């Protein structure tokens, strides 16, 4: 007689208990970017809304930024590192491919032996992580999960590429997700479209780089206009679906936190969604640039720090990028 396999006992609801951000110390102006590309401060502001961004200094590594953001999130959540049951790091710019940087982050924080792994969903990675963490807790395979979005895109950006040099930047954001009495994380709407794989990508594989006569670091490339169209209009539909699945309309929202890809995309999405005037729209890109997986938690943390958003507010998160991949959910801000 074979014994029956027991089922993990989960919880009904989850929420974000704490959020933390780490912004690198070095501010990089548009004028500095224009030392390498034929552009201007005005052109960059008009096309992207970016006024300045931050690049990590050598000591501000992916691991260091992750740990700093996580410590703030843990403190605000009033959760000890030893209570963390899993550490998920969303990143595409940790340049040691294996093992996962999450293992080092977990060790430095004091979460060992919690499982720790990285996920690769580019700019959508953080919202993927929030969904994975929430489902893990609902299913009973953990109580508190740390989710980090972190990038050092300055390492993989070509400063002479006019299409991307002014966009990408560095930073980290982290959240602690755990059980809740009422729902704080709505159903995820997510997906990927590999037919658009080439629109945003690392230009060369490592193998191809090594075959070059003078090997060069691979860098990011983006086909801006098709990405703009997809992000502004297709993603507005995904945002609406995430609201629908949460049983809400735009009137129920307090805060809109889209991936900080480009101010023009944020504006176009807001118009397409017909957001009412009372909804606070995250526009962190003006001073942080596009930090890929870090942008949603950085932007949400900035609104909470400035007082534009407050704990308990209902926010719509949506992130999208290379893949093309995307994820959106309605959450209660911590």
């Amino acid at each position, binding site marked *: 007689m074979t014994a029956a396999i027991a089922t993990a006992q989960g919880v009904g609801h989850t929420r974000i208990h704490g959020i933390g951000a780490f912004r690198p110390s070095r501010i990089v102006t548009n004028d500095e970017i224009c030392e390498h590309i034929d552009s201007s401060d005005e052109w960059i502001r*008009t096309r992207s809304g970016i006024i300045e961004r931050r690049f990590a200094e050598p000591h501000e590594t992916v691991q260091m930024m992750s740990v700093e953001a996580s410590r703030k999130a843990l403190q605000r959540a009033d959760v000890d590192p030893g209570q963390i049951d899993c550490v998920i790091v969303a990143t595409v710019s940790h340049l040691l491919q294996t093992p996962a940087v999450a293992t080092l982050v977990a060790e430095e924080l004091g979460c060992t032996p919690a499982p720790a792994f990285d996920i690769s969903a580019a700019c959508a990675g953080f919202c993927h992580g929030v969904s994975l963490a929430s489902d893990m807790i609902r299913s009973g395979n953990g109580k508190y999960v740390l989710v980090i979005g972190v990038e050092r895109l300055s390492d993989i950006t070509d400063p002479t590429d006019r299409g991307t040099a002014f966009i990408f930047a560095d930073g980290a954001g982290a959240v602690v997700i755990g059980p809740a009495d009422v729902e704080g994380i709505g159903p995820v709407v997510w997906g990927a479209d590999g037919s658009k794989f080439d629109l945003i990508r690392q230009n060369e594989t490592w193998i191809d780089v090594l075959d070059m006569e003078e090997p060069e670091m691979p860098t990011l490339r983006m086909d801006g*206009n098709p990405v703009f*169209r997809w992000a502004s209009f297709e993603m507005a539909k995904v945002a609406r679906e995430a609201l629908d699945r949460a049983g809400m309309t735009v009137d129920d929202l307090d805060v809109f936190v889209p991936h900080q890809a480009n101010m023009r995309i944020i504006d*176009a999405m807001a118009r397409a969604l017909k957001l009412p005037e009372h909804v606070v729209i995250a526009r962190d890109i003006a001073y942080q640039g596009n930090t890929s997986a870090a942008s949603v938690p950085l932007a949400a943390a900035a609104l909470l720090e400035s007082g534009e958003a407050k704990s308990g507010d209902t926010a719509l998160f949506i992130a999208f990028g290379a893949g093309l991949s995307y994820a959106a959910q309605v959450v209660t801000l911590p």
Partner: protein
Amino acid sequence: MASTEEIRSGLADIVNEVAGIPADDVQLDKSFTDDLDVDSLSMVEVVVAAEEQFGVKIPDDEVKNLKTVGDAVAYIENAQSA
């Protein structure tokens, strides 16, 4: 099926809404970038709105060929009659 003037006029309203350019300036001989100062991202917004209004598809690869208002009107006319 809309007439050339109806399409031009509809497109002019879209350009006005997206880029804030007076609709009367949006004439067939005008270049979107050189005369009307519609940048590439605004052009994408114009195209998406035009697709919806005129019930046509304007693929990304075609957008760069639409240099003047006349090019766009002709493309929409052809697409509608196809």
